[in-house]
């Protein structure tokens, strides 16, 4: 405990911690919609696209990687969503294709053009997140905090619309709600979250941040508002626990957060089945 207090005396550790918490909150909020809309795989695909974009950005030696990663990922999200609703092209195969292609190109670029002497380390930290949140750059922290705040605000303002479009897109469209625009909004938010989460847990593990809290909440609660709120709170708790353990015992932060989410999921699953048994009798 005193070690933890010591670490938290550094303002930078505090900022990193807050950023991590904000990102996990955002991803859990949108995760519920993603899982219910059967879009989980899009999140996975996007994370690989973000990896590819990051590789391009680092090859180009940009001062700020976000300038490339964010637009590319948002564009991919819009593209995937459009093909997903088009029955002519197999959306599934398309996502798989984009995913692996981005991964391959990303790794290739990093290998061929990298100035760094430690390519394996670079790739590894992009895929699985920084070894510790303490290595996040200050710019990363500020951008993440601002974008997270925007995502949360947009989500709250459009909460009712997101619910309606998620529950029944045809009804929404038929009664004059611009479902297409809201789908687009959801896609953009997801892309932003994926990019943000990459810093924290890496591009391979970001899906976990999106999916686990949502599934956990859905196994315990039966109404959308409760599921959304609980999912956000649970994600916050799990990633805080993960980050604290990571700081104290110097294990990789991304993996630790995902493990914490997994444990949370198992607990919720058990709690859900107990709850069902009780109410069934």
């Amino acid at each position, binding site marked *: 405990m005193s070690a933890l207090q010591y670490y938290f005396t550094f303002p930078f550790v505090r900022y990193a911690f807050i950023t991590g918490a904000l990102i996990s909150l955002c991803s859990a909020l949108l995760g519920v919609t993603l899982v219910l*809309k059967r879009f989980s795989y899009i999140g996975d695909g996007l994370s690989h696209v973000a990896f590819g974009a990051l590789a391009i950005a680092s090859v180009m030696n940009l001062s700020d990687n976000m300038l490339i990663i964010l637009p590319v990922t948002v564009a991919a999200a819009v593209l995937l969503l459009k093909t997903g609703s088009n029955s002519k092209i197999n959306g599934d195969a398309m996502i798989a294709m984009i995913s692996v292609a981005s991964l391959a190109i990303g790794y290739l670029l990093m290998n061929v053009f990298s100035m760094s002497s430690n390519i394996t380390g670079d790739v590894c930290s992009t895929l699985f997140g920084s070894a510790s949140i303490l290595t996040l750059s200050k710019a990363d922290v500020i951008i993440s905090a601002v974008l997270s705040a925007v995502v949360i605000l947009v989500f709250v303002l459009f909460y*009712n619309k997101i619910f309606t479009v998620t529950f029944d897109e045809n*009804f929404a469209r*038929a*009664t004059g709600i611009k479902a297409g625009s809201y789908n687009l909004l959801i896609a953009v938010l997801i892309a932003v979250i994926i990019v943000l989460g990459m810093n924290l847990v890496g591009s391979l593990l970001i899906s976990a941040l999106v999916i686990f809290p949502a599934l956990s909440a859905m196994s315990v609660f039966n109404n959308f508002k409760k599921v959304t709120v609980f999912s956000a709170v649970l994600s916050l708790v799990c990633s805080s626990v993960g980050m604290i353990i990571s700081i104290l015992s110097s294990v990789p932060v991304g993996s630790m957060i995902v493990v914490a989410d997994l444990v949370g999921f198992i607990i919720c699953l058990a709690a859900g089945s107990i709850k069902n048994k009780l109410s069934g009798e």
Partner: protein
Amino acid sequence: MILECKNLKLGYESKTVISDLSFSLEKGDYLSIIGENGSGKSTLMKTVLGLMKPMSGEIIFSDGLKKNEIGYLPQQTVVQKDFPASVEEVVMSGCLNKKGFHPFYSKSDREKCAYAMKSVGISDLRKKSYRQLSGGQQQRTLLARALCATGKMLLLDEPVTGLDTESENVMYYLINALNKQGITVIMITHDLSAALKYSNKILSVGEENFFGTKEEYLEKFGGEI
């Protein structure tokens, strides 16, 4: 006249499912759309709702009917089967089409929602989860949602499919009551006897289209029933 369809030709890509279809409805009509599976009933409804474009022809709403004054009861989707939402949340979402950019529901929306739930007799299920309801209760929830979205016109896509006889009768009774209050109803159904019992106009789509009043339908096809 509240709705007029002129020379509609409907279909997907190059495949035509309905051609040369014209009909019109007055305010307060109760239209049943009948036809074989695959004859294009749902396609027609989706086109009237603006979810699909007709290949040719025109759909005209009049009497000042706006897009956000139509209520729709679609067939259930896979997504909804295990969707964690309370009855109240689902019904409330019917109010959304009048909100524009306003982010939250108002007191009058809540009242409208409560009234809609009362009309279809699900007020006591308000806090229940949609995924734990019986088929009949789910359909009544969706009917209440459609009611929140409209006071003028309801489009129902096979509202009694998969229901037991009792729930089926309740649904027909509720729909009929709403029609009596002046709401125009367009319903797709497999059930010819219900169509003839409740509606005043019949549209039969297939090889040959028929549109007319119930009496005209009976006169033309009466021998076959």
